[in-house]
């Protein structure tokens, strides 16, 4: 018998090890869940980690109010089917409480506001560790992240001061009020995630698959039309066959024209593609170091 694993099996084992460490080292962990493919895979891994027991922590969704309706529907159905606890933090509440100010203008997005809501939700529920589906290949600033990422009491991330993370020993020691972000699928690439979804037959929101949709084009990016999308007068609605490769808010997620309507076709497309996964995310494009700056403020 061959005593080695395929890369997917090895990555899976590593992720499950990390998730179990979180449950063991922290008192009140949570799994950040957006309804996107990465958080769906993390949830699937969490179920495996504790099988045949239940997942011993809640799902947490920071809801900007600008989500695709398909994502919300998917989230609600999943939660109902599995009987898992869901905690929702509403960015609208933060706006109403005067904690954040809504952006104005045609490129307005609530993406930057999420951080405040996330930190508030963490504090209200006294979570000491939040897991998320971030991967190191997604973006420059994430390439430097640890599995266990220490955040100070303001939720801030200091890149110059991250703890060395050696072997498979994760140091989750902290003082009161501090917490951790943990990223079990740090070493997974976009392709690994899709291959895993295919191998495990994991259900996803329909947005990922090719469908006809009412869209408009702005600065070369195809945006979905929706009730809170601020369109310029010259931006006309048209019907196109598109799918979403990454899913953020409707206000900052671009679609790609594609005929890929099942997993195998999506994987072929991803393999042949010439642009990165987050290339259609305008939240990353605001400056060279957009992600780094957001993380320093406490973003996921």
């Amino acid at each position, binding site marked *: 018998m061959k*005593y080695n*694993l395929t890369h997917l099996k090895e990555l899976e084992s590593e992720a499950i090890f990390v998730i179990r460490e979180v449950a063991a080292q922290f008192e009140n962990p949570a799994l950040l869940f957006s309804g996107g493919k990465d958080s769906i895979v993390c949830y699937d891994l969490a179920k495996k980690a504790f099988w*045949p027991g*239940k997942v011993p922590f809640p799902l947490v969704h920071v809801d900007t109010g600008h989500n695709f309706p398909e994502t919300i529907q998917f989230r609600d159905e999943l939660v109902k089917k599995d009987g898992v606890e869901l905690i929702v933090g509403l960015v609208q509440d933060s706006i109403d409480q005067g904690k954040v100010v809504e952006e104005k203008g045609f490129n307005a997005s609530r993406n930057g506001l999420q951080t405040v809501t996330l930190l508030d939700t963490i504090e209200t529920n006294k979570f000491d560790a939040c897991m998320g589906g971030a991967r190191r290949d997604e973006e420059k600033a994430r390439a430097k992240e640890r599995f266990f990422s220490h955040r100070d009491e303001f939720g801030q991330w200091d890149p110059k001061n991250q703890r060395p993370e*050696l072997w*498979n*020993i994760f*140091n989750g020691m902290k003082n009161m009020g501090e917490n951790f972000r943990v990223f079990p699928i740090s070493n997974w690439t976009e392709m690994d995630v899709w291959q895993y979804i295919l191998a495990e037959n994991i259900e996803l929101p329909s947005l990922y698959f090719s469908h006809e949709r009412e869209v408009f084009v702005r600065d070369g990016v195809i945006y979905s039309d929706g009730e809170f999308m601020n369109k310029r007068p010259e931006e006309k609605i048209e019907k196109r066959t598109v799918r979403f490769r990454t899913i953020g808010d409707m206000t900052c997620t671009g679609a790609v024209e594609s005929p890929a309507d099942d997993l195998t076709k999506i994987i072929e497309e991803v393999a042949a593609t010439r642009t990165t996964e987050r290339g259609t995310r305008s939240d990353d494009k605001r400056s060279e*170091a957009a992600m780094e700056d957001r993380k320093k403020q406490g973003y996921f």
Partner: protein
Amino acid sequence: MELLRFTTAGSVDDGKSTLIGRLLYDSKAIFQDQMEAVEKASKKIGGGEVNLALLTDGLRSEREQGITIDVAYRYFATPKRKFIIADTPGHIQYTRNMVTGASTANLAIILVDARHGLVEQTARHSFIASLLGIKHVVYCINKMDLVDFSQEVFDKIKKQLDDFSSKLDIADVRYIPMSALLGDNVVDRSKNMAWYQGSTLLYTLETVHIASDANHVDCRFPVQTVIRPQTTEYHDYRGYAGRVAGGIFKKGDEIAVLPSGFTSKIAKIDSYDGEVDEAFPPMSCTILLEDDIDVSRGDMIVRVNNQPDVSQDHEMMICWMSQRPIQLNGKYAVKHTTRDARCIVKDIKYKVDINSLHRLEDDKEIKMNDIARISIRTTVSLFTDRYQRNRNTGSIILIDEGTNETVGAGMIL
């Protein structure tokens, strides 16, 4: 398809970032928009060609200063293998980052500038690779284009490195002449060095045999957590979840639990995909025992006739990572597999001069980035193996109890 983790080490001017950029570029892993972003940034910084190094320099201050500060993980795959690159800094002041990146690597790429040969940094990186138990080292003698692709130069450097590395504990050492800038022998064979009959770097990475590197002999299973559903369907289910750290566990094996010493037999090994007959590293699984004995996190399941060292006294090589020097008689928290303890530093035996590999018996001031041999005593027994025999059960970290920072990386002797 297997997974290979490797580190890249070299000084700022060795062209390491260019090498990685070349690996990603020539194996087509770099996406169009990333290249466009790099081209745009290259124009801003100046310099003629596209600066592939900018692909890996991620943080703002790095992009401005043009050097790598932290460990950056990059990913690419060929049809043969998936790769994880831990790209680590070359400066001595970031030794801790290199040790971090090297701790999980199967292979180390060490860049050497063909104009200079073996320098202090090469020696240091080689020593660290061997200390961290990396079994395969590939010396890339780079910038061959600046020495006229001379075979003589390559052979001279190869001899230098050979003499040096034979003092170290590395099983598999290879040498490749290349030019990362021009792409010679990185992915494609060099047309300028017909005298070189060996493999290209990518071919080496795709074919190096790593399946035997894990310890399949000594059964070690540190318990992470206990799974007790207590549901109607699984009322009596009591499973010990963890990741196999060594050896091959089978259903029916006679095992002992440490520290209690209680024995039992493996009733079942569950993976999340159903029952399995065997479990080996690095599989995560859940072990069920025939007897109802007390097992909890921090315990270790082993074979009765092959047990680790059970002791409170430990001798180790340590890489110090804190601004504050190690304190003789100082107290620290420790983490070893899934077990926590506290320790006191009993003795500092010597510091290693990484450049000469000599022991400095009189220099007991162990500062950040120093490597030393020490002994500690822990509050409870730990279940260890020599690091060179098993990285999982031979590794330990020391934690400063005031700041919670990881201050030392220990390898048990």
